[in-house]
């Protein structure tokens, strides 16, 4: 009873590990299909979503905040997908998008750079050198992405519960280790942690609904009491108030909504 996120670089065998873990625990395995769901739900081109979650924002995008919008959509789709528990999510930034949920096992699978470039070279039919620089570029892109959006380094091991290097430890060993960890008491879904999950679903849905018009809002939900924090002052708050009127009925699980416009966003808001 938990959610496992597996973060990985390209050619780190993370996907294989994830699929095997899912099979071994009889969990669902979710990855890019989240993007499809997000693209359906918010009527955005899937390609744009892929770009948003993969590439670091360029200087132009940083000003437009388009990327944050797409990520809010993806996050909303992801949290409502994993809400029902027993899911392995492998793919981008799962550990960041599901921050704050106690029953998420955050795993990172890493591999030796030589091994990764060998695999890439083989698959793409390019020289080892080229493959290597392609992988380094890809890693760098990921680093910039998390750095610019979340201010953390994806290689920082303190973001994860478990980091496994697939090299001398085989894929099967890694699967064993992850499955073992997932069975631990600390990651069991409790009513309290499930409540947190529900609140995250609500908060993400509200944020996704508002972000296009009000990119600066921060949303917190606690037991269905939603606080929307706007950093841009009172006049904006009035507009947001009008906009949220309709949300209460379209998004489930909302008990009350308030719009706050001063001070800092409450801790834990998305």
């Amino acid at each position, binding site marked *: 009873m938990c959610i496992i996120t597996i973060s990985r670089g390209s050619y780190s065998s993370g996907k294989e590990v994830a699929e095997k873990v899912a099979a071994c625990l009889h969990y669902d395995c979710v990855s890019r299909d989240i993007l499809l769901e997000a693209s359906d739900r918010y009527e955005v081109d899937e390609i744009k979503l892929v770009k948003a979650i993969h590439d670091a924002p360029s200087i132009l995008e940083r000003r437009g905040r388009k990327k944050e919008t797409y990520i809010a959509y993806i996050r909303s789709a992801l949290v409502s997908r994993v809400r029902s528990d027993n899911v392995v999510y492998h793919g981008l930034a799962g550990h960041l998008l599901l921050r704050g949920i106690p029953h998420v096992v955050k795993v990172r699978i890493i591999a030796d750079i030589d091994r990764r470039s060998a695999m890439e070279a083989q698959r793409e039919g390019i020289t080892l050198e080229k493959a290597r620089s392609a992988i380094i570029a890809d890693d760098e892109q990921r680093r910039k992405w998390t750095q610019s959006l979340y201010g953390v380094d994806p290689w920082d091991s303190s973001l994860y*519960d478990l*980091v496994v290097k697939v090299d001398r430890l085989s894929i099967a060993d890694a699967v064993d280790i992850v499955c073992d960890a997932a069975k*631990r008491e*600390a*990651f069991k879904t409790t009513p309290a942690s499930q409540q947190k999950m529900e609140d995250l679903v609500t908060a993400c849905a509200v944020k996704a609904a508002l972000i296009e018009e009000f990119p600066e809002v921060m949303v917190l939900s606690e037991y269905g009491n939603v606080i929307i924090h706007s950093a841009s002052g009172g006049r904006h708050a009035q507009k947001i108030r009008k906009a949220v009127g309709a949300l209460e009925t379209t998004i489930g699980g909302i008990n009350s909504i308030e719009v706050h416009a001063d001070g800092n966003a409450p801790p834990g808001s998305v």
Partner: protein
Amino acid sequence: MTIIAISSDSYRMGREIGEKISKRLGYRYLDREILKEISAGSGISEGKLLKALEKTPSALGMSARDQAVYLAHIEKKVIGEFLKDNVVCHGLAAHLYVLGVSHVLKVRVLSNPEVLGKELAPGKDLSGDAMEKLIGRNENARKRWSLKAFSLDETDPSNYDMVISLNKIEINEAVKSIAEAVGYKKFKAMSYSLKCLKDEETAAEARTILFPRFPDAQVRANGPTVVVITKGMKREKQKKALIIKEMVGKIPGVNFVEVHIVNDILRQAAESLR
């Protein structure tokens, strides 16, 4: 001869885990207690050895040369112990100098930030922000130390087989995971990886002899052959090579010493300007 090298951001936590693993597997546990023996064998005080493991050399504190010498002594002794027995080793930077030895299971354990915060600032009740800062500073210090001493980043997860964060996983569970992982085939000692370990020991011994005079020497061992690379200038070269050969040749089991002397461009430039 199975070896588990544990690195941790908290010495106390790493020790607890190391002891538990050694008890569970019946391995020998090795940590900074062994500094006493090293001190007795080398005549270097225990305090200095400890300092070499903890502090980055600085202008006012310990010199880089001294640190290199002390660490070489520690390395020599620790590898010697590795060759004898099944060992769980913690707190002696083993994960940094046996990186190339494939049968060593290298694990990093990250402690819970709250516990770590209390350990770093005992008796103080720090706020979340202050704690985060303190931990960040501690981690940076370790990173600087490891880069300076071994040119490796201790905090980089790709230098380990496994990183376990004790944020949610309990100590006993982490112990179990590590004990199980060491059972995998890859971590059984093979003749090749044993040879690597032995070479590493020889190289470490050579370093203990060379570093007091030639702190910039790079030493590699391959069976009975030892290769030393160092910097030197014109006339010096010959003399230096001879001295090094003589010094290293005394080590039992070494029958060929090869000395490469690279031109010391900087010094040459500096002297030509005189």
